[in-house]
């Protein structure tokens, strides 16, 4: 039994403990040690996650590199890990983004100036430990997210799906961006609580469904949480779920994932959380943690409840369609850069969920690629926005103007991020958005057509933002803005490069993902609809 997966999960977890235990950062040198250690741990994790993706054979078994250890025997719970193409790719995405986030947030957790009333003098524990806390929490989130992507035990997945809320909560509530005044502390804790309560409610509803699934399975002789066993039993008909039970359980699981993803109308926590958190944390939320929600829809909802998935697919498609249009419209109206990115993400998550529940192979491949591409492009966009905000000390769009004259590199990378967000052909998100739309169109033409409106609206919000902040006369306060530093360039350059590379040559990714998508789809007993024109059929076949 290979222990590669466990190692990949354990390294960031151990790194989190180690980082937290490093000597307190009273001096800049101490803090740099902490950050370097955390960054090194995340680099090792990246290497391990890459090794997992390389060792995964797309044409081999469904779950590979499997490991299983007994954990809570009384409830049939095991610590079981295994990887399919989708999980491997998403874990790799996580491992790529975390070092970027760390580099981008290099100074975000440095102790700020002492509070005026002296309640927090520079010597207090909290201020000395701030840096350790921030980087340890990021590593903890990374470890938990990777476990979620690798888990093949429903209960194990649930535990980490829930537990990752706690470090995320402290990241949002404890380390906001410096732009806000005294009011921002209150808004930040509001955002953190809202994030936690929404997701906790979702998780608890899922807990009821998890228990329900276990009780039903136990009655029929499957006292286990092992996902492959359960999905095979459901597919093979040896585990029978009545229609009502299956629908109820599906909704329980789906609710939790829809909150996390987030799907309209359960999205309202996201703009708050992303707006108040640091840019790095916002990337963690939208590009890493939220992906667990969409990933879980693919793996758990479709695999365990195929019939219910088909029943509810049209309704979910309508909700995701609303999300696409609604998110984009609200993004256009935002005054705050980070909230704009958040609403844009809601629109993108609409596309991902639409791709999943169109139940076509193109739609689902597209959705999986979309998760990766959205992760990369939004990370680039958001992090550059974060650099911009940290220079001016304001999140308001109205405070900027003419930045491209002062800081051309910053503006240029921001433009690439914006163009990726609006799915410009040649950049990675185009491929996935196109696949999702085609995949949806073949089964639900009307929904596919309306969803294309989302592309037009995306062009509006992304370009309007660029125009208002970067072009025009140079605003007061922007005049002396420095351009990107080496550290910041080191963050943005790989993201931009990946966005372009995967836009031109998505093949490595599709090769990895497609067999797993087909396996998922066959669990739902769905084949792609017969195309109206035989010509289209051959071209569709080639595409696969």
């Amino acid at each position: 039994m290979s222990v590669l997966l466990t190692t990949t999960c354990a390294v960031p977890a151990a790194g989190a403990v180690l980082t937290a235990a490093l000597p307190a950062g009273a001096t800049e040198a101490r803090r740099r040690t902490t950050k370097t250690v955390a960054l090194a741990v995340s680099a090792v994790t990246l290497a391990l996650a890459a090794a997992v993706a390389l060792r995964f054979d797309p044409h081999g078994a469904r779950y590979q590199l499997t490991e299983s250890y007994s954990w809570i025997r009384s409830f049939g719970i095991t610590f079981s890990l295994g990887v399919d193409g989708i999980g491997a790719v998403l874990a790799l995405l996580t491992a790529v983004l975390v070092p970027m986030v760390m580099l981008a947030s290099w100074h975000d957790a440095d102790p700020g100036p002492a509070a005026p009333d002296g309640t927090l003098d520079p010597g207090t524990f909290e201020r000395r430990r701030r840096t350790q806390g921030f980087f340890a929490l990021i590593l903890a989130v990374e470890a938990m997210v990777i476990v979620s992507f690798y888990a093949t035990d429903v209960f194990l997945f649930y535990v980490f799906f829930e537990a990752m809320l706690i470090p995320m909560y402290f990241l949002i509530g404890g380390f906001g961006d410096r732009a806000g005044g005294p009011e921002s502390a209150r808004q930040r804790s509001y955002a953190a609580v809202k994030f936690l309560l929404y997701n906790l409610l979702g998780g608890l509803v899922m807990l009821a469904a998890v228990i329900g699934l276990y009780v039903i399975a136990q009655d029929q002789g499957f006292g286990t949480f092992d996902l492959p066993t359960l999905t095979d039993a459901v597919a093979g008909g040896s585990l029978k779920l009545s229609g009502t039970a299956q629908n109820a359980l599906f909704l329980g699981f789906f609710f939790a994932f829809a909150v996390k993803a987030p799907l309209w109308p359960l999205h309202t926590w996201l703009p708050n959380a992303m707006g108040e958190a640091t840019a790095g944390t916002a990337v963690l939320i939208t590009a890493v943690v939220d992906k667990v929600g969409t990933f879980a829809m693919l793996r758990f909802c479709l695999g365990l409840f195929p019939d219910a998935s088909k029943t509810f697919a049209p309704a979910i498609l309508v909700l995701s369609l609303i999300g696409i249009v609604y998110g984009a419209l609200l993004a256009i109206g935002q005054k705050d850069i980070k909230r704009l990115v958040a609403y844009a993400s809601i629109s993108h998550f609409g596309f991902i969920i639409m791709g999943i529940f169109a139940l076509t192979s193109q739609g689902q491949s597209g959705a999986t690629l979309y998760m990766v591409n959205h992760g990369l492009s939004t990370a680039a966009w958001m992090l550059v926005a974060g650099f911009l905000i940290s220079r001016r000390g304001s999140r308001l769009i109205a405070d900027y103007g003419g930045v491209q004259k002062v800081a051309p590199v910053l503006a240029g990378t921001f433009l690439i991020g914006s163009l990726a967000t609006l799915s410009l052909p040649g950049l990675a998100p185009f491929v996935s958005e196109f696949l999702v739309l085609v995949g949806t169109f073949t089964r639900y033409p009307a929904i596919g057509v309306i969803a294309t409106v989302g592309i037009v609206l995306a062009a509006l919000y992304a370009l309007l933002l660029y125009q208002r902040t970067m072009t025009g006369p140079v605003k007061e306060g922007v005049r002396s803005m420095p351009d990107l530093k080496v550290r910041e360039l080191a963050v943005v350059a790989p993201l931009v490069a990946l966005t372009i590379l995967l836009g031109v040559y998505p093949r490595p990714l599709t090769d990895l993902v497609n067999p797993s998508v087909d396996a998922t789809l066959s669990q739902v007993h769905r084949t792609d609809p017969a195309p109206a024109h035989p010509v289209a059929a051959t071209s569709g076949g080639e595409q696969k």
Partner: protein
Amino acid sequence: MSASAVLAAAGGNTPSIPAPHVEYGQLSPMLVVFGAAVAGVLVEAFVPRRLRRWTQVSLSLVALVGAFVAVVVLAAQGHGAPRIDLLAMESVALDGPALFLQGVILLVAVVTVLTYAERRLEPKAGGEPADAFAAQAAATPGGEQERAAVRAGFTTTEVFPLTMFAVGGMLLFPAANDLLTMFVALEVFSLPLYLLCALARRRRLLSQEAAVKYFLLGAFASAFFLFGTALLYGYAGSVKLVDIADIVSGKTMTTAAQLSSTRSDVLLLTGLAMLAVGLLFKVGAVPFHSWTPDVYQGAPTPVTGFMASATKVAAFGAFLRLFYVAFPGLRLDWRPVLWGVAILTMVVGAVLAVTQQDVKRLLAYSSIAHAGFILTGVIAVNKQGLSSVLFYLAAYSFVTLGAFAVVTLVRDSKGEATHLSSWAGLGRRSPLVAAVFALFLLAFAGIPLTSGFTGKFAVFQAAAAGGATPLVIVGVLSSAVAAFFYIRVIVLMFFSDPKPGGPTVAIPSAFTATAIGVGVLVTLGLGLLPQYFLDLASKASLFAY
């Protein structure tokens, strides 16, 4: 038996009243604790004042650890499970649940005694280190006599024997195999608790008010219990749980007592309802919960921790025995009622906790909500239900003890600063204490990887398997509401700015530090690697019948 037969028997060679056969070995956990309690009273009378405290602390700890060792030895010898004995003329059952709960209660008591022994938190009084208890309990609050007692540096070492008596009663309560023994145990552990509630060093009036409330309502509840016992005796002609079960299920009647049974359903149902009232009061279930916040708030915090954990364990133990041994045949009658009680308890506990402004009251309402969660496991009426409740009780006790021990540390000039507003920014000044308290709160909220989650999962799973799916859904929703107020406290501690002149965190001695450390260890241990304890609970979940 006619009167003449009795006379004839009495006059004959064979004695009509056999000398009771008492299995001292198997009863040793209780005997040791009661013995130490009696010895503690003697210590109060004969040992000089300056030696008394150390004598009492060591006596109590030695006795409790000894009793725990006795429990472990009994379990290792196969008592409880698989071997089930009825002791002391069948009035005490030595079965799995009894032994498991006795073990839990004893461990809880050890930790409690540690928190009692803490003397570094209070400022010195009369040149002597002071603990959490009144200098002289009998003195009028604020009166000259009290001031004199404080000046003289007196301490109330009586708390140790009182607690030992309470622990003894609690050990007996879940093991009692007939209604009268159960009642006696109930009184034995309740009376010392009433007294202990009144012994707070600070806020004496609040403390005495709490004691009076607890005593009055508790006396009512005991009366209900006793009346229920009488009615059931009228119904079954016996107070033995097993006899009652036989009559309920309509088995053939053999003994004379059973022949005299009236078999009146009115007596049976009224009696059962009254017993339930008495027990639901003790576990703090709605609608018999109203004493909880006041008493938890007024009592000295170490005593509150003890009540919130050990009392609940003992009372739920008796509750389980009553409903699983004596009245399984009536489950169609009592389950709907308990459904209602459980739903009300979860919802009321969670919703009212949201509005609380005092940490101790908040924890009180949270304990009410948890009583509701435990009831969902009770209602399952299957082996899983029993073992999940046992596990939940063990997990919950140590979280509670730890949480109340942390409360004793946060202090201002008036003693413990329990108002929530004064906890603002605690996480920034004392991150370690705040982090530990946050861990306990997360465990209360049932976040995965803590003991609270494992327990909640176990009871909900048992309830779902027992066909109580709606209860699970209500449980999950009230967990979400409950999570809100736990999180509110975490927000307050970590994300609010500390108030100038707010409370400070006192550095505890090794006693309280150990107590909190045990709480943290158990919380994480039962969350991360619960299998051994789940096995233990599962192995223990068979009642003597």
